[in-house]
């Protein structure tokens, strides 16, 4: 069977920003792992709700309030379908960071006691590290770390010992630095067998491949809209319905209540119990449009496209730069997503990023909000190129040529 393919030229035409130039060069956007660009369909959906149907949600009984509420809740249903969960299990947050903090502040504070362990991996983004550090300082929770293997996977040799006495396992589905894809299901099985729940940071997975939270057998899954063609300001938490029901509220305010008296309050039903205040309405609608867009082109096809393009990029970088470039991440494209982090000779990541910008190429430089990982790798900063639906082999060529320019410019790659 031929793998599904993307009509990339047609997709590119949907992204207005790709028509602009930087320094007189075509914009080559290779930082989608940080945040993706937005297709006209998303921009139009957000524009339309503001122009035609905007009102606060769950408040008014007038026509446009009904329309606004319906559009907002339709986005929740689309998200649930995308992730394989129930609509009532989707809590909108502003991003993955807030989703994980919701779990840390609500579930973990209600359930974890001093001496309980939370297991995290060395390849987590700070969003899946710092909330647990905070909890550790506040509650005396023990943080345990799953180390890396030499080939940029998770070293599960001591998993049983690490999970012994653990209440929660936190793992990224796809590393934002290494590109590594982690096999969530066996980790979830091991965690559950040890009596721990599983929280998956799916920020780098949901935009790029089919995800099924039930197939993962996860308990909590965080995702964000702005990395999956949607706007910034909306993301969410999927969590098992029974967990959400039992969890205390996180933020208090409007919308999350059933009743408020001078003596106290009772909470609304899930998921609204966790959505205090006016939510990001147009942003949720934009996310819904982004999901429609991704499902129309097909996440199987997205994955196949990125897999092929990543192989192309790895081959091109190898062919042009050989040993002068060190790539931090798996070489096997079946084990990795499209984020490629590297050191290039002696040239600092910021200098590389600055020079390739001159060629219109946008790459990320720095620690990528994953300093425990950077320490484990023994590096301070890497340059990262990441690919998405609107990138093609011309972009790979532009990257390679721009890097060659950086090498010429600094002239002493060692």
């Amino acid at each position, binding site marked *: 069977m031929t793998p599904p393919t993307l009509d990339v030229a047609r997709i590119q035409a949907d992204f207005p920003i790709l028509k602009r130039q930087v320094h007189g060069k075509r914009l080559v956007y290779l930082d989608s792992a940080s945040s993706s660009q937005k297709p006209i369909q998303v921009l139009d959906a957000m524009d339309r709700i503001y122009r035609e149907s905007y009102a606060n949600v769950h408040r008014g009984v007038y026509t446009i309030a009904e329309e606004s509420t319906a559009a907002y809740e339709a986005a929740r249903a689309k998200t649930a379908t995308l992730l394989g969960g129930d609509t009532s299990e989707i809590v909108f947050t502003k991003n993955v960071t807030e989703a994980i903090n919701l779990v840390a502040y609500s579930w973990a504070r209600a359930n974890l006691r001093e001496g309980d362990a939370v297991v995290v991996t060395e390849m987590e983004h700070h969003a899946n590290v710092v909330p647990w550090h905070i909890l550790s300082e506040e509650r005396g929770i023990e943080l345990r770390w799953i180390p890396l293997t030499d080939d940029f996977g998770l070293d599960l040799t001591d998993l049983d010992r690490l999970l012994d006495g653990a209440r929660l396992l936190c793992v990224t589905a796809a590393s934002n630095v290494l590109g590594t894809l982690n096999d969530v299901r066996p980790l979830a099985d091991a965690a559950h067998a040890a009596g721990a729940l599983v929280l998956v940071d799916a920020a780098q997975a949901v935009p790029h491949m089919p995800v099924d939270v039930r197939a993962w057998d996860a308990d909590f899954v965080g995702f964000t809209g702005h990395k999956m063609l949607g706007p910034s300001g909306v993301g969410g938490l999927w969590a098992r319905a029974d967990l959400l029901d039992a969890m205390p509220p996180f933020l208090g305010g409007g919308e999350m209540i059933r009743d408020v008296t001078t003596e106290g309050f009772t909470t609304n039903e899930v998921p609204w119990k966790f959505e205090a205040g006016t939510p990001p309405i147009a942003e949720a609608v934009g996310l819904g449009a982004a999901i429609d867009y991704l499902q129309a082109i097909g996440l199987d096809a997205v994955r196949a496209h990125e897999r092929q393009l990543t192989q192309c990029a790895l081959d091109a970088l190898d062919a042009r730069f050989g040993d002068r470039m060190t790539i931090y991440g798996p070489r096997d494209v079946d084990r990795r997503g499209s984020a490629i982090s590297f050191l290039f000779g002696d040239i600092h990541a*910021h200098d590389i990023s600055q020079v390739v910008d001159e060629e219109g190429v946008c790459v990320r430089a720095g620690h990528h909000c994953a300093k425990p990982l950077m320490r484990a790798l023994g590096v301070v900063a890497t340059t990262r190129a990441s690919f998405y639906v609107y990138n093609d082999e011309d972009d790979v060529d532009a990257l390679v040529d721009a890097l060659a320019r950086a090498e010429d410019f*600094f002239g002493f790659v060692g």
Partner: protein
Amino acid sequence: MPGLEDLYREIILDHYRAPRNRGELPVPPAHRAEGFNPLCGDEVILYLDVDDGTVTDIRTAGQGCSISQASTSMMSAAVKGKPVEEARRLIRAFKSLMSIHESTLEGGGADGDGDGGYPDEADDVRLGDLEALQGVVKFPVRIKCATLAWNTLQQGLDESVGAAS
């Protein structure tokens, strides 16, 4: 739009390729100061020998981008052998060079440090080669790279003077 040649002047690349005063000094008597830019991971470590009000020797270590490391090298060459007071004037003048242009870029206003003495002082101090770094202000995200060494020097001088008194 500013070009790369505004940022990466030849003298900057020269200091980056062949940094001056690299190494360490025994602590004590030297004072060790460490500066860190958490955003990009640039790291500057300074070893300062301050004797009788003079920076008698300086060595630098650390790692980072060309701008942070060239600025460190140029700073070390500029203050080595100079009286502490002159080093402090250079710090103020250099930070002024960065902040005046920064505020000009942002459409005017007071400099970020709120120190009204900076602009006058800047006129009085000869920055020499250091002026090559002024192109950095056209790239606002890189200003912190250039000022890191100077902030670290300021911290080191404050600490070593404090330790001596």
